[in-house]
């Protein structure tokens, strides 16, 4: 079992001095499905940005055994598919095809391979017929799935999602959960949607105040509602 993500004693503070992460350690093996939960401002998004080298703090990080050095970053960015919260920031091409093709084209792949990658990625999110559509005009749920496709086209080993279900209506949310269940990659999901966590992700890591407050079996963590509340979390009944 390979170590997909290995974080040891990661600390990070912003240029303005604010300490966002302190001594975070986390090991995720290939194929695991993990949730990252915690209140706003806890450092979830900051942590995620370290996993493809956008931010770099002190401590040790290894992605699929690779350290985020200048050389390795392009490789890591293909291995780690990071999907941000707001799809509008990730869909900046005139058509869906072009957005999903960005990754493969950047990698220098030839036209035929690019097309097959796009086809595969759109198939994975069940949106193959959207290729010529204009991303801007799609619904939030559709945009979110296209955004996932834009990283799937790079055939990543690890999928990281930041608040994938936020803003979605029940139907779109259901679609998303079904989709996430099908995807084979190692999964790390930062979310407030605890019902999604309970349904999909057997392991939960609680982050509060830039530190790891709990890390273990989702059902166990959720059974301690007092503890959850102390970290600003509430399980809807």
């Amino acid at each position, binding site marked *: 079992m390979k170590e997909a993500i290995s974080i040891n004693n990661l600390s990070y503070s912003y240029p303005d001095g604010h300490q966002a992460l302190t001594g975070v350690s986390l090991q995720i093996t290939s194929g695991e499905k993990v949730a990252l939960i915690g209140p706003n401002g806890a450092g979830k998004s900051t942590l995620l940005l370290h996993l493809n080298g956008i931010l770099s703090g002190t401590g040790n990080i290894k992605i699929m055994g690779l350290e985020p050095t200048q050389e390795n970053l392009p490789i890591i960015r293909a291995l780690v598919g990071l999907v941000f919260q707001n799809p509008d920031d990730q869909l900046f*091409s*005139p058509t869906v095809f072009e957005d999903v093709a960005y990754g493969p084209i950047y990698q220098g792949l030839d036209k035929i391979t690019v097309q097959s990658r796009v086809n595969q990625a759109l198939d994975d999110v069940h949106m193959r017929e959207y290729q010529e559509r*204009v991303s801007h*005009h799609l619904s939030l749920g559709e945009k979110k799935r296209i955004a996932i496709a834009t990283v799937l086209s790079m055939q990543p080993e690890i999928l990281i999602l930041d608040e994938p279900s936020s803003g979605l209506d029940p139907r779109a949310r259901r679609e998303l959960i079904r989709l996430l269940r099908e995807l084979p990659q190692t999964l790390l999901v930062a979310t407030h949607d605890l019902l999604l966590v309970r349904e999909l992700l057997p392991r939960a890591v609680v982050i509060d105040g830039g530190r790891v407050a709990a890390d273990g079996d989702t059902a166990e963590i959720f059974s301690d509602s007092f503890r959850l509340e102390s970290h600003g979390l509430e399980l809807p009944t």
Partner: protein
Amino acid sequence: MWYSPRSMHIPDGFLSILVAVLFWILSTLIVSLAIRQVSQERDERKLPVMGVLAAAIFAGQMLNFAVAGGTSGHLLGATLATIIVGPWAAILVMTCVVAIQALIFQDGGLLAMGANIFNMAVIGVSVSFLVYSILLKISKGNRWGYYAGAVIGAWSAIEAAALAAGLQLALSGTSPANIAIPAMAGIHALIGLGEALITLGAITFIMSTRPDLLTSSSQAVRGRSSLWIVGLALAVILAFLSPLASTHPDGLERVAEQQGFIKLAQPSVFQLIPDYIVPGINNTTLATIIAGLVGILILIGVSLILYHLRHKTHK
């Protein structure tokens, strides 16, 4: 992400007082005209649109793409602004962008702001508008007209603004005309290419997502009369006349000299400049021609304004 200075924002200390004041006056006049024009257009939405667009353009100037060996291409945005909100509003938008850059980020001086506003907001916008309108007319509303107008307009606007900046530097005695102007023109020919490509990408995106934003602003543009042809003819004549008209090849240097006589602590610099300061750039006539071309563009801009004043078509 430290804010990096641009190649066209002239800092303080590089322009003589005369040149700085002259362009402050010119800019104030034209911006006032633009304010009047925009206020008269009776469109209350203009204010939020301009404010938010100005913010978007400023922020958009930070978007970059890798060119080669660590350099990157950037956007100025005058052409995009012109296409989206029309020339008068675009002048105001770009003025705000240039002003904030100078005031808050010291990109461009405070005294020199008049000249920077003139180069980027006035010349940048009016040249964009000229080229864009011409191409829209020629293409009779076809898609390619928008794209060609955006590309050629963007490149021309950057070139024109750069020439003006070179001219201002030469007039101030900071840089000799036969170096400053070709250098500015040369460097910005490449930068203008980047601007053209980014603008094209932006227009392509807008065309596919909100084509109404483009077609509505183009309606007013296409109904123009043949004033453009008159302006263009004047411009061409000037281009050929300027080298002939100046009996001394170093016409600009004489102007710099005369400023020296007014003795505002800017003694003339180039009375004794040899003709071949830098190997290869040996033609001061070239400088005058280019100066002529800049004059053309300014003239075009002015005729634009006069045309608008006469017809007062609203969007």
